[in-house]
């Protein structure tokens, strides 16, 4: 019984550590801005018929869009275009992908989220694509 309590306590501590650790990373909106503009916008402008300014959606809309993790109307995952593998695939042609090649996937995603939330229509500083 004692050991079960000990285990539960330990798991609680561990999970708390996990959640605190996850929560401790505050998205770097400036890094997110560079990635959004140099990778997302650059590709959208060249291949997807136009870029999407952060200020075209509200914070809530961005939040739900990012949570849904659906890119190109659900054809693929949004996180795929933020991940290290994707960055590695374009780093020879894209300086932002090259510069941020070692940033952990989750951090990069949080960075972009911080930028679009800040630049949303109702955000602290509505932002354009460029």
């Amino acid at each position, binding site marked *: 019984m004692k*050991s*079960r309590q*000990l*285990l539960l306590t*330990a*798991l609680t*501590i*561990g*999970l*708390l*550590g*996990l959640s*605190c*650790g*996850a929560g*401790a*990373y*505050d998205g770097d*909106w*400036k890094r997110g*801005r*560079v990635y959004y*503009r*140099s990778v997302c916008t650059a590709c959208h402008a060249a291949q997807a018929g136009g870029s999407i300014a952060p200020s075209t959606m509200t914070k809530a809309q961005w939040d739900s869009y990012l949570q849904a993790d659906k890119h190109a109307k659900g054809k693929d995952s949004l996180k795929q275009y933020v991940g290290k593998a994707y960055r590695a695939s374009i780093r020879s042609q894209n*300086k*932002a992908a*090259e*510069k941020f090649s070692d940033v952990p996937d989750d951090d990069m995603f949080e960075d972009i989220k911080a930028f679009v939330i*800040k630049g949303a229509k109702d955000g*602290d*500083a509505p932002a354009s694509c*460029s």
Partner: protein
Amino acid sequence: MKTSSFTHLARCRVRRAALLAAVLLGGAIQGGHALAARAESTADHSKFKELQQAFSSGPEVTQACLNCHTEASKQVHRTKHWTWEFLNPANDQRLGKKNVINNFCISVPSNYPFCTSCHVGYGWKDASFDFKSEANVDCLVCHDTTGSYRKLPGLAGHPPYQDTEIPPGSGKIARAVDLTKVAQKVGRTSRDTCGACHFFGGGGDGVKHGDMDSSLAAPDKELDVHMDATGLDFTCGTCHRTSSHDIPGSRYTPVARDTEGAHVPGREDRSLPATCPACHGQTPHKGNGPAAKLNDHTDTVACQTCHIPAIARGGVATKMSWDWSTAGQLGPDGKAMMKKDGDGRVIYDSKKGDFVLGENVIPDYAWFNGDVTYTLLGDKVDKNDAVTRINTLGGSAGDGRSLIWPMKVFHGVQPYDPVNRTLVTPHTAGNDDTAYWRNFGWEKAIDAGMSVSGASFSGKVDFIKTEMSWPITHMVAPKEQAVRCGECHSKGGRLERIEGIYIPGRDGNRLIDLLGWLMAGGALAGALIHGGLRLLRRDA
């Protein structure tokens, strides 16, 4: 029984292992983030008890900052960013934003609550502002890293402490700043913090400078090789290396020609760090041949002349002229109006008059030696002059101190007093009955403004043509986009109006050119004839 004991022991071990793994996993993730945080800064301000409180005003935050940074406010008090005043030792002119008149929004006095949204302080709403108050220094405007801190026009340097509609009646709400969040996230200055004011000088994005606008917040290499956000990523402070809050690089006494070598860490050097030679030295082009030829230019041409091929290259238009004389026209509904061009840029505003905007503008070029003389309030002006210079930049080919610099020359038509023959300081911004942007009456507005300035006003208003020069130094293009030789070394080229110097390709005399070609042709012919004769003689 033995089996049961063994099983129990095994379970305990598994649980202990799980326990250890769980604790280590959580700790490891936390530790990873702590490491990342340490790599960026030596202090996490959110851990300071002084900042773990709800702040109701900016000065309260400053008081908390001063608990540790005991000398910061005193240092700021000694800077132009605080005093908005500067005594030019070269000519004893009392300058600074507080004193100069320009041909953009014209002047600060009587418009304090609006202009001082770009002051590094809180509460400068009139001439009674307490310049000795340490709590009035605004730490956050320069050290915010959240991008959420902002000061609104009309609040005398304060950020909004509650949700505020701006402009009043517009329906646009500027949300209250979370002072605690901003205070706990302070850090080094950045292009964003400096740019919050310097990108928006003259009343809007890119309006004033032409080489500074919001496109520099996160530029690519094409726009600025140094600030390239995916490359060198310079901040403003990389060149404007600051000591004790004093930021080098003055527009009132700029260094037009830096004859010092590159700065070397450890070597005593009192020259300005914000010049190109401060890093690149006097022979910046490496190699022989063409590079050596380019290095021959550095005693004549500023680096900026070749390496900043155009003004406003980042997609944000800059104002090239401003005509206040057409202000005050109202729309059919009797209300102030705006007109926009095809790109959606405002080219007429009832409050301000007509504008001409430009992008990728070829600069003007002039000799510049760093001397700047302003036309100040009280100086006599004459409408019969072709133009009144708001600032006159010194320089000539022969003074040994000048280089050829690129300039943004801004043209204005602004109100003046035709009886006293002086420029004027109108009261433009405000909700009172004398503010021009409210009542559209120049006489009342100028009378109120001149009263605050302590200057006499005849009551008569006319308009005068003015000109203001801005040496260009930001938005440095990649070398592949530098100005080509032929753009200056040609007739009608960029340096067509530069006097006092012989520029091959631009300058010439037909007779001398003909003589030169005849000599060259003669020499060639002589060589050919000589060689031909020798060949013939050998055969013989």
